[in-house]
């Protein structure tokens, strides 16, 4: 007992914090899987939100605090709220469902799922092969210095090196705001 404790405490626990990112990563993957598999749309959107929260925590664990907070603010606060509102605003109407030719034709649906699954698996296999077996995989640099992204450095970078993209993003966001409002507006003429 005493010996076991001594051995347990002599494990390199000080190396543990750099593997903490595995917890949010695992949570993120589980939530994403649930979001894909579940039937109820609201449950899908809630699982997607959980997945995004875990992704934000993962960013924070990797040292990119600012990006993690932006991820939480934009995705949890805005994007998933939009998705949830859209789900509530577009109820699946019974008439449309019965007219759907694909509802009665179950074979096509099953085929669709199998084909989609096969494509996704192929892409996954290709990506994993590229990640683990490509000659460049061994060339990956292991940094000696800790990577940090303080808010002040990001702000300076935004206004010095990426000013033009920043302005472009501002114009794009304004255009998207106006466009979305116009699109979603009820057409009075029809």
């Amino acid at each position, binding site marked *: 007992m005493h010996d076991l404790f001594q051995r347990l405490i002599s494990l390199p626990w000080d190396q543990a914090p750099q593997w903490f990112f595995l917890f949010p990563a695992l949570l993120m993957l589980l939530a994403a899987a649930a979001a894909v598999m579940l039937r109820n749309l609201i449950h899908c959107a809630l699982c997607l939100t959980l997945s995004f929260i875990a992704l934000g925590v993962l960013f924070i664990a990797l040292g990119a*605090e600012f990006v993690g907070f932006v991820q*939480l*603010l934009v995705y949890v606060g805005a994007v998933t709220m939009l998705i949830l509102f859209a789900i509530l605003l577009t109820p699946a109407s019974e008439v449309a469902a019965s007219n759907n030719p694909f509802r009665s034709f179950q074979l096509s649906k099953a085929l669709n799922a199998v084909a989609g699954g096969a494509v996704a698996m192929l892409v996954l296999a290709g990506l994993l092969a590229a990640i683990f077996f490509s000659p460049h995989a061994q060339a990956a640099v292991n940094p000696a210095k800790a990577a940090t992204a303080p*808010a002040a450095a990001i702000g300076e970078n935004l206004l010095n090196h990426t000013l033009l993209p920043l302005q472009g993003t501002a114009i794009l966001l304004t255009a998207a705001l106006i466009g979305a409002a116009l699109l979603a507006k009820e057409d009075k003429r029809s």
Partner: protein
Amino acid sequence: MHFLENLPLATKKFILDLVKGACGWLCTKLGIALPPWAMPLLLTLVSILVVIVAIIAVYMVMFALMSVAERKILARMQNRYGPNRAGWFGILQPVADGIKMLTKEDLVPRGADKIVHFLAPIAMVAPALMLPAIIPYGTGMVPVELSAGILYFFALGAGTELAVFMAGWSSNNKYSVMGAMRAIAQMISYELPLVMSAVIAALVAGTLSPTGIVEAQGGYSLGFIPNWFVFTPWGFVACLLFYIGALAESNRCPFDLPEGESELVAGHLTEYSGFKYAIFFMAEYVGMFAINGLLVTLFLGGYKAPCPFLEWIPSWCWFFAKLALLAFSMVWVRATLPRFRIDQMMQFAWKFMLPMSFAALIAAAVWYYAGRGPLAWGLSALIVGIPYLALGHFCFTRHHTADNRRYLYSE
């Protein structure tokens, strides 16, 4: 007085020393050799734990005091007694409330989505308890020092909307869904001016770190007026906008439409009872204290004393005094103002508060570059004053809407 100033930090150091001593004694007693990194790691964990316990304890005490103080103050303003049965002047009322809530039956509607219905209170209280972590309570007394602390606050605040949606939707009740929709619409609308006015303070201080913003408000002009942001034209406007936004974000009167009793039973809380309801209630109050703490940090000089000759009072006392003043003012507002109508509330956010926050942003930038002197004062006062008068005249004057008003359901 130096002793009082250092009391919280000294207590923390004492606990850490105690743990260190106890651990060393235990290890020599048992004959275990600790690796060199073990003690610092342990002490870090213990200090995190101490801070968490301290924050939760302080906020729970404030919640308990507030719940009885609010009812006493409201009663005084409405010429009645208020709670006066439990304990001396009703001081034990929170205990009685807690026992009542804990012993009530926990009802879950048959048509409810049970998992989401169960998770909603947790999703509500977890971010609310994490909010107070970045607020500087005194000199050197900030639980977590983040370079993007303000962003952290608003990122977590976004979680509340999700919890409200979960509560409303999972209850499977029309009033719940309507209340949740109202709450989300209100929170999203008022988050914009809230974030904009926080940006103004960050802009002038040149940092997103709350401690940095408090330090930027140190010192006195003319020897007695503190350099708080609220004492500048743009800061005054931004502070008021932030205060109104804070009222709306914490769903307090006059922005309590989401749970307006006379219209929606209790909004998204309709199907909650017992301890889950108490958790929602607690999350709301903790969130209110946290956002008031941020208001104190951003505009009211945080833990700084208001006059040079009062600096002998410990800094954390000043912080909590300002917080108590703001909490009292929120009760006062609740006793004074009637509830908004939903269209008035949305109009107020989008047509008045958002343009005003942009005007205050420009005024702050002008003030910053015009040298902070009398000229800067005049210019920035002009920049916030003209939009105020124009918006008030064109959007909110009675004659503008009186002609085309129609009473749809009463004719």
